[in-house]
């Protein structure tokens, strides 16, 4: 067949590479700030926008979507055309992809510190941004698939397979998890409640790790490791086998985030089984990556890029060994809610993602600027700082996680908790958090050196926008035959036709069934039979939304697992029925502070007077000198947003929360009545406060938590029409 000449456009690769560097530093800097806030809460300078609860989501989103996100786009826009021997299908869509993605990031950087959040981890962005993400993602996917359709090579190299799986799965996950009912432009409620919401969230959360931080990175590995080492991949066959098995297994592993929590046992067992099985395809990838360098270890010794790759791929192997282990119920009982999880994810991001991305940039930037890397020794210094930083980061956290879990579970000979004061268990691991901050500092220093090195490299070269290439056309395309996806061929291909019909049917079915899926029972099992969970009062709902917006869930869980140690510390373990009005759920994932689920049960293990909560929120150091919780003094001056209350009630009604008809009209009145009771109580203890302040709503919410089970609250009069 004919040989054709064509050009690759390096413009987008360059843009994405710059964005990766800028956002990478930003993400790390925010993470480091958060690490210091855990040590000294005063680091937030008393500014609400910088408190840990708001900064942590910004850090995770920046690391995942801004740093790694731009990194994988760099890889995809560079490697896809070269592998398929055709330029990207549409430079215009590419441009929209680039600017749209940066816009999403900027919007995230604005809204999250302002407390505009859905509180679903790694999906915190509110609904208008969710829509924007969807559009940008579809633009990206369309460009990718159309490039594939217009390819010149017959064969599709394995990296492309990984990119396609990334596009498809992330699209489905994002849509599934972002189902939310808007209340205003900045506020929405998750369509799902409580345990259902948790399940969907972690189905998403786990697969975000799988299909955003893993599959595209494997694609990157399969392109850049062979390229840099100039050796073919160890086993192409293995890469194919592990690709297909990886994507088939990954989607089932989500429930391992919810072990021992209010989820049916069989679902937990399913999650565990698939998680353990995942070790096989994951290690297939690691082995394939490492063995590609067989016989080239002399190169590895000299080339910092290969060194970064080796440590990165090894980190992938370590975290995919650790993941299945953490999914075992016995291990999870210890590791969950501790720093172990934090260590685990940082082996993945700092090790696997970070090292591979920086390695890629060191190779790619000189290439598109037609020059040499400015300094190999600086790159070596970066490599060592990154590796040491990683070790100083994760090893202390493993130690901290294990230690704290054991302290939580320790009983005295007489059967009491050995460490009943939660803060004691934290103070014990504080030195480990200092090591972690040191590790982070080293890693960031390395990254800064990398950026300097790359900037110098850019300065020393000239940008090569277009690169010429030529290739044989192995795939026939003419205007009539639009390929597998096209309409004309569809009729002739029963398989494809069946597939699309099936999709349509299933989507239709889902739309019909979702309402039933989200129906749940409001019964709470107790020793005596059952109690009934009631909706939140308007004041509590307002308080709950403040809790969400401040990101309290980043430090506090609301999920008491059925362990003696937890029941002893916090109160009766959580029942699914207790969460059914929780749009969204607030189970949390790390207990930097104590669980709050039974905080409101009068006579319970944790119940506190209103005045205590007031003092504590105003300044936690007042109730406990060594507390590391942020202070929230602005809550005593900021007003509750009353105007939005009726809309919130109506939204909840739409979601099936049984407020009586017409309740939205009297909701504000009820809110004021309840606020006055709390305000009076506070004023009786000598605290000067107005009823319409945010702190009153938050206290009302805290005092409600977990109390319906024992009926120790008087909410009935606030949620009836009378």
């Amino acid at each position, binding site marked *: 067949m004919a040989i054709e000449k064509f050009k690759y456009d390096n413009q987008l690769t360059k843009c994405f590479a710059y964005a990766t560097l800028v956002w990478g530093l930003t993400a790390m800097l925010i993470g480091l700030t958060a690490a210091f806030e855990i040590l000294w809460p005063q680091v937030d300078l008393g500014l609400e926008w910088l408190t840990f609860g708001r900064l942590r989501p910004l850090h995770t989103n920046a690391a995942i979507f801004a740093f790694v996100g731009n990194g994988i786009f760099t890889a995809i826009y560079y490697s896809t055309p070269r592998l398929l021997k055709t330029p990207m299908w549409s430079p215009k869509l590419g441009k929209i992809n680039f600017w749209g993605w940066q816009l999403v990031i900027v919007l995230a950087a604005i809204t999250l510190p302002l407390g505009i959040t859905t509180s679903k981890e790694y999906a915190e962005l509110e609904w208008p941004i969710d829509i924007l993400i969807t559009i940008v993602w579809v633009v990206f996917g369309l460009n990718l698939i159309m490039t594939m359709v217009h390819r010149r090579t017959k064969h599709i190299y394995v990296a492309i397979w990984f990119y396609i799986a990334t596009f498809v799965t992330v699209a489905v996950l994002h849509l599934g998890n972002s189902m939310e009912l808007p209340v205003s432009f900045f506020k929405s409620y998750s369509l799902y409640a409580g345990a259902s919401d948790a399940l969907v969230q972690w189905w998403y959360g786990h697969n975000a790790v799988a299909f955003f931080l893993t599959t595209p990175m494997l694609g990157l590995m399969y392109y850049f490791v062979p*390229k840099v080492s100039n050796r073919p991949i160890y086993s192409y066959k293995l890469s194919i086998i592990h690709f297909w098995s990886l994507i088939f297994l990954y989607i089932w592993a989500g429930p391992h985030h919810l072990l021992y929590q209010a989820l*049916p046992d069989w679902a937990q067992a399913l999650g565990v089984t698939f998680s353990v099985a995942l070790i096989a395809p994951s290690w297939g990838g690691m082995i394939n990556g490492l063995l590609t360098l067989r016989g080239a270890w002399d190169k590895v010794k000299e080339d910092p890029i290969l060194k970064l790759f080796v440590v990165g791929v090894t980190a992938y192997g370590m975290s995919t060994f650790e993941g299945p282990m953490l999914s075992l119920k016995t291990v999870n009982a210890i590791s969950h809610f501790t720093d172990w999880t934090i260590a685990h994810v940082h082996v993945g991001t700092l090790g696997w993602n970070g090292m591979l991305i920086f390695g890629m940039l060191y190779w790619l930037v000189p290439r598109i600027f037609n020059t040499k890397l400015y300094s190999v020794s600086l790159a070596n210094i970066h490599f060592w700082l990154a590796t040491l930083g990683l070790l100083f980061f994760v090893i202390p956290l493993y130690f901290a996680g294990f230690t704290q879990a054991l302290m939580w579970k320790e009983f005295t000979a007489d059967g009491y908790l050995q460490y009943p004061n939660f803060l004691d268990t934290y103070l014990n691991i504080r030195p480990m958090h200092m090591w972690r901050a040191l590790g982070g500092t080293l890693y960031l220093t390395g990254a800064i050196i990398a950026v300097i090195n790359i900037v110098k490299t850019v300065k020393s070269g000239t940008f090569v926008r277009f690169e010429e290439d030529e290739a044989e056309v192995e795939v026939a395309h003419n205007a009539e035959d639009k390929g597998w996806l096209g309409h004309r061929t569809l009729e002739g291909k029963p398989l494809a036709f069946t597939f699309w019909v099936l999709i349509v049917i299933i989507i239709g079915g889902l739309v019909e069934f979702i309402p039933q899926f989200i129906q749940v029972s409001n019964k709470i099992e107790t020793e005596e039979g059952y109690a009934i969970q009631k909706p939140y009062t308007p004041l509590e709902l307002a308080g709950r939304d403040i809790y969400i917006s401040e990101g309290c869930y980043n430090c506090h869980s609301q999920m008491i697992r059925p362990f003696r140690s937890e029941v002893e510390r916090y109160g009766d373990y959580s029942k699914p029925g207790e969460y059914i009005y929780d749009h969204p759920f607030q189970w949390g994932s790390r207990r930097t502070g104590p669980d709050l689920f039974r905080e409101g049960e009068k006579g319970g293990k944790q119940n506190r007077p209103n005045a205590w909560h007031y003092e504590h929120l105003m300044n936690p150091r007042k109730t406990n000198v060594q507390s590391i919780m942020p202070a929230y003094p602005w809550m005593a001056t900021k007003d509750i947003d009353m105007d939005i209350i009726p809309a919130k009630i109506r939204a909840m009604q739409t979601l099936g929360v049984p407020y009586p008809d017409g309740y939205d009209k009297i909701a504000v009145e009820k809110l004021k009545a309840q606020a006055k009771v709390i305000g009076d109580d506070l004023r009786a203890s000598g605290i000067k406060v107005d009823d319409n302040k945010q702190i009153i709503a938050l206290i009302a919410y805290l005092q409600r938590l977990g109390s319906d089970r024992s009926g120790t609250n008087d909410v009935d009069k606030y949620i009836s029409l009378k």
Partner: protein
Amino acid sequence: MSVIYMTISISLLLALGFLVAFIWSVRTGQFEDDYSPSVRMLYDNKDEPQSTDTVMEQEDNDK
């Protein structure tokens, strides 16, 4: 909790999609050759390897 059936159906749908993609790729001969793609990707017009021989040589040494 029955939302679990929703996530399962979506996951099944996804898996089904993957299956179709897999069948398609096998049928169109994507995996007929499980060696040369790994070598081919090393050659770009401009990029090294400068000569075909070096890679082939390395390959021979490995065997």
